[in-house]
């Protein structure tokens, strides 16, 4: 039923990726847990919703997460580029609200390559940029086979990949072993 180390995950290091859909946060935290090291979460200041440290304690230690509040998307990108290039941070998550231009996307890729760290932009659906290495669509799925404690089933769809094939996976996060578990899809 499960494959303990999915080959598709994590996506290639030293690149910037994109993720959209309602399960984007889960993807970001799973990636952070998998990459280990410090995480920088860049978001705009006006954003009313807030990641909850009591919730992501199952994924990463909140001491390793630094939060940056920026004025607008330009600042977000500048902070993300600086953090990626420094090489101190292993994952930079940026919450974007506007489409990303080609130049900005390319600069993020170069910064990630220079700093040997990974970038992840959480984008609204349908606003991907061409410079992204991969783009994922993540959505939670209900599956009656799992009890309410461990129902973290997600459908992860790779909708763009610059160096490989696309695919769909059903995965679940296991908090006890801190591992991503691949599950056969519901109803099959």
């Amino acid at each position, binding site marked *: 039923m499960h494959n303990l180390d999915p080959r598709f995950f994590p996506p290639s290091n030293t690149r910037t990726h994109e993720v959209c859909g*309602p399960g984007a*946060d*889960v993807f970001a*935290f799973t990636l952070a847990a998998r990459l280990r090291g*410090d995480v920088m979460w860049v978001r705009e*200041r006006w954003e*009313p*919703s*807030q*990641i*909850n*440290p*009591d*919730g*992501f*304690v*199952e994924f990463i*230690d*909140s*001491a*390793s*997460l*630094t*939060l*940056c*509040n*920026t*004025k607008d998307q330009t*600042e977000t990108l*500048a*902070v993300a580029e*600086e*953090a990626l290039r*420094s*090489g*101190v*941070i292993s994952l930079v998550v940026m919450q974007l609200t506007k489409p990303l231009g080609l130049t900005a996307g390319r600069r993020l890729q170069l910064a990630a390559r220079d700093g040997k760290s990974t970038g992840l932009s959480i984008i609204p659906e349908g606003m991907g940029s061409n410079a992204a290495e991969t783009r994922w669509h993540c*959505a*939670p*799925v*209900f599956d*009656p086979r799992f009890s*309410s*404690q461990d*129902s*973290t089933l997600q*459908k992860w769809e790779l909708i763009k990949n610059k160096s490989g094939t696309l695919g769909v996976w059903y995965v679940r*996060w296991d908090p006890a072993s801190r591992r991503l578990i691949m599950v056969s899809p519901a109803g099959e």
Partner: protein
Amino acid sequence: MFDGIPRRVVSLWFPRLASDQILRRCPSGGPFALTLKQSNINRLYCLNGQATQQGLHPGMPYSDARAFCPNLQTAPVDLLQGQRFLQILCRWATRYCPWVGLEGRDGLVLDISGSTHLFGGEKEMLSDMRTRLTRAGLSVQIGLADTRAAAWALAHHGEGLAPPGDMLAALQNLPVAALQLDEKTSTALTRLGLRKIGDLAAAPRAPLTRRFGPDVLRRLDQAVGQQPEGITPVADPPHYGVRMTLPEPIGLISDVMAGTERLLTRLCAKLKAQEMGARGLTMTLRRVDQDHQEVELRLARPLRDPHRILPLFERGLAEVDAGFGIDQLRLEATQVEALPAQQLTHVSAGRKGHLEDLITRIGTRIGLTNIQRFLPADSHIPERSFIIAPAAYSDPASGWTCTNPRPLRLFPPEPLMIAEPHPPERFRWRRMSLTTARATGPERIAPEWWLEDDNWRSGLRDYWRVETTQGRRLWLFYTPQNPGWFVQGEFA
């Protein structure tokens, strides 16, 4: 004294320093007093002249004072501010001589040996002091003598100017309390009939020492100048500023950086000697046209390592417009914090510092307070179970304990158009129709009544984890005291 110039000491006593300080700013006509809360009782601390005339005295309970004098105006005393004011006066007093020290909480002591002729003599100097202090709204009593103890005695007990030479002659009519003895000793001396300093000096020494210890005669000897007593001048606070003037103006970034490096090396050596670290730095660049530009740097952690600070200046210096050239650089640590030397261990030898340097670099762009981290807090209220603190001013903390599952993302409660008490089968949220597949709960959370919180006005909350067939796993709550359903978070 020893090199031929007779030592002369001035003692300034400000009997109403605290109240004068307040009344200087907002003069009031009537009696005025400052109160100090001591062991749960408000007592008068410092009074103005009119309040003293009404029969009030310091140390009197505030309620008694109000009964004696109904139109008394009062304010609570700020002792720290009073101390600061005395420091300012101390600095002002250096206009008369360089050797100025503090005398208790409300006095100054000046060693004016050899500087009186600059003011035309001792009397002229004292009247100059008095004029200036009175004009500033301070009441003052001045004593001038050969020794510190004698000057204090004269200032506190009927001001005066003791002519140089025989101190005992000047002091002999003052009460023994003028020797700064404790109250018990001076009362005992009075009971023995030794009311005045002259009586004390005439009494045989050995029995006095046997009865009161060596302190009484030591004070007497200090007053008449047979034993020395020093004045400790207040040291200037260390100044963390360095500058460099250039013979030829410079304009290239690399040149300015090289200059900055030289200044930083000097400044950091100074910081290291004092075991301090800079938190904020200001670089002032003066151009040849007398215009100047400032580059400010706020650090995420107190630092005194020039090699780490220098790269952080790059961004700010690159934005400076050099014009026709820069001919003076000035670097000042505007904010310093204690940074004691630390033992190097294998734990601290990691790459910990690099994250702080990154925070500083990002902080110069978006402001240091916008870079934050989560700290655990002791509360059941979901939005108050963590604190968001500026990363530059806090240390990361572990120790998150949460027994119940909590959502990954929290948002301000979004109401659902449902009022029934059991979890809804179907509901609309954010323009989506959702069907409940499984609801787990309730988990009841009560508001924290000891904290005022508008969001929790609706009373108790019953939290449910609702899994929808559409996939979303939401955190809903029902408020039984104010029927209504809200969505507050989304689970992984």
